[in-house]
């Protein structure tokens, strides 16, 4: 189910931990699996668990505990907007409102063309740069004025 490239990346993570502690690589391994497959199905989680010699249920517990794993399909671009208080004071909530209007969706919804999913995020440790949003868990965008948001949406083809 997982490609050689993904397994290779997992191996590199496993090497960071003591030999008896392969399970320590499960968070990274799930992230790589999500990168490759788009989201984490039960089968994908089981494949990761099998590769790390751990029970599937233990990997599933991890996948369901951490916010950034997607246990259901999401759009091509998952936009997570921080609306926590420090960001809200500098436009976080309004930026999310702006996005909802632009995309015609609410939080936890995906546009009909499958391009965008919108998520409400908690503090990303970047409150001085509000409004802040994360694209596909990995790329952080700061100081998102209406213009900047328009530009970002345009770049997400």
């Amino acid at each position, binding site marked *: 189910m997982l490609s050689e490239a993904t397994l290779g990346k997992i191996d590199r993570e496993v090497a*960071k931990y003591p030999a008896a502690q392969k399970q320590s690589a499960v968070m990274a391994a799930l992230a790589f699996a999500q990168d490759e497959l788009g989201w984490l199905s039960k089968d994908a989680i089981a494949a990761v668990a099998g590769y790390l010699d751990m029970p599937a249920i233990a990997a599933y517990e991890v996948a369901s*505990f951490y*916010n950034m794993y997607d246990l259901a399909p999401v759009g091509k671009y998952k936009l997570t907007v921080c609306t926590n208080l420090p960001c809200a004071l500098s436009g976080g909530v309004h930026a999310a409102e702006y996005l909802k209007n632009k995309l015609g969706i609410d939080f936890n919804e995906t546009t009909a063309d499958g391009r965008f999913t919108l998520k409400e995020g908690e503090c*990303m*440790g970047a409150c*001085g740069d*509000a409004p802040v949003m994360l694209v596909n*868990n*990995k790329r952080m965008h700061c100081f998102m004025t209406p213009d900047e948001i328009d530009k970002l949406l345009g770049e997400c083809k």
Partner: protein
Amino acid sequence: MALLEAINPLLSAGWQKGGHEWRLENDTGWRLKDYEARGGYQSLKKILAGKMSPDDVINEVKKSVLRGRGGAGFPTGLKWSFMPKAAPEKYIVCNTDEGEPGTFKDRDIQRFDPHAIIEGMIIAAYAVGAGRGYNYIHGEIYELYQRFEQALDEARAAGYLGQNILGAGFDFELFAHHGWGAYICGEESALLESIEGKKGQPRFKPPFPANVGLYGKPTTINNTESFASIPFIFRIGGESFLDLGKPNNGGTKLYSVSGHVNRPGNFEVPMGTPFARLLEMAGGMRGGRKLKAVIPGGSSAPVLPADVMMDCTMDYDSIAKAGSMLGSGAVIVMDETTCMVKALERLSYFYYEESCGQCTPCREGTGWMYKVIHRIEHGEGRPEDLALLDRLTINIMGRTICALGDAASMPVQSFVKHFRNEFEYHIENKKCLVPPDVQRAGSSFFTRNMGQA
């Protein structure tokens, strides 16, 4: 302002030289060669070449009165001294799971000065006799996790990590562990569980990590800023570091200033700097509006009204005396456009969302508090709700495995205490004391040229 260069000139330089854009354009100093050019790894060399013993190192850190920058303010040197000497397998862990709302200092240290963290961790490893370390990096800053991996490669290639470091017969391996979005993993024992590949649920204490930590082995865990301060302490000496600050509050500290100010950002100032000065450094109040309230130490710290805050200096003791906590040094500034009920509603939602669910008082209590504050904010509050909130906080505090329960309760208690009239107004009039259009203008989303202020 030489003091401001304590951890890294780039951290504070931005505000002097034109803000966010300047900082990004000048984000070129993080590589090993740049760090070495500004004196990096000299402290490690000095310690190893001068044959300072691990105990000498710990004593120097004790002298500096560096207090843990992760929130609790526990003296770092003392923490290191708790590590059992004889244990064969020990760990050093850095807590970069920065997710306490308002806090964004560790991200800038990761960005501008990853080698200061690495050097600090190596020195700590030498002091406590650890052979392996991990830096747990907050899920949302993936790009900086990648940068840290590169910095580690540089340090390994230069012989600062690995076997027989600098020929001193001391071995230490260091790795980065990337989180994936869970505030509770900032709590040290949850973080250790997370490195072990489990759900991030805090452990019962005692035993403390110094005895039973990562993989059950003795472990020292410190905040990023604590580690990043270590090389500087050995550059100028523990006593000089202490002298930079106030007695019992050693050194300089990074403050993350967010909210209704003109120039949000990180500012490194000596412990004991007046709050008014910090506010001025952050460009003053946005739009010249009036200061209403400040949360001085991250969202878990009690809120303080403007007049109390204006009399405070920024150090553990002064803020504690005023009835709050310096915590992580995250200063959340709110002006007169802020509805305190709505502000508290958002914070309560956060704790409800992030409770790991292990303890009933925290799991049920955070949900209940959110529900009550939500209904007050939405015009459905009942006269008895404020007393109910008070009871809820009392039933949570001190009855949980970790401090998240207290962290969720302190904002509720302090908001209701200091801004009771606003809560009462909401309940009686089914609307907000601060008109909606005034609130809306506060964020400046539709008017401000962000980051250029």
